[in-house]
């Protein structure tokens, strides 16, 4: 399932359209950046409320497929600029991480 397909099925709002519509192969929920960094897998859809510039860096370095900001958490302006620069997909939803991850789990 690609990120665009994921966005459609989970009714996500696209905040930043990244470089490639790559495959989503798993999911990870978490807000502590080092925790996520050490555990998220390449290709994961990362559900978080952290919309700061460091979250963008973690997503890039951990090679997540995309970031989904849950519960309408905000994407900082500098984070948006960094995501655009680095081609990182950032999406958002009003639903919480549990609900979204549960839906994703059923789709994979």
């Amino acid at each position, binding site marked *: 399932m690609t990120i665009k397909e994921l966005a459609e099925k989970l009714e996500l709002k696209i905040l930043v359209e990244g470089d490639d519509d790559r495959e989503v192969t798993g999911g990870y929920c978490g*807000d*502590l*950046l*080092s925790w996520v960094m050490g555990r998220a897998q390449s290709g994961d859809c990362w559900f978080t409320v952290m919309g700061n*510039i460091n979250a963008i860096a973690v997503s890039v*370095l951990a090679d997540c497929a995309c970031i989904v900001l849950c519960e309408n958490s905000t994407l900082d302006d500098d984070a948006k600029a960094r995501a655009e620069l680095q081609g990182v997909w950032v999406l958002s939803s009003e639903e919480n991480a549990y609900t979204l991850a549960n839906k994703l789990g059923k789709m994979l």
Partner: protein
Amino acid sequence: MNNFKLHFTVPGDDFTRAGEASGSVKKTLKDLGFNPEIVRKCVIALYEAEINLVIHAGGGEIDVEISPECISMVLTDQGPGIPDVALAMKEGYSTAPDNVRSLGFGAGMGLPNIKKYTDEMKIDSTVGVGTTMYLKVFTN
């Protein structure tokens, strides 16, 4: 492939630039065709160490040497030093201030993550003088 050497200066307390060195190393390793898992190990370890320079040390220097067999990373700072390295290595132990925790850091996972994702890790630290961290990831 000739050995590559990269050098970065990391400014302290500037979270907007944290990750620039790690990102640059990631790009270089990918461009050189290293296995994605090797790239991932290197950049996770390096990012954690880079963040530590920003949070704790007032910045520092990073030297990376890339050969076909090994990626070597040395991080040097003139920060306050680590009084008890063994304690700092424990998962969950953190001295990060509240403003840093609010950014999502300070989970006490930095040094454990570095150890987990490198093949060799050595810390030389003297309180009041600074810290040097030596990291190696082997490619085979």
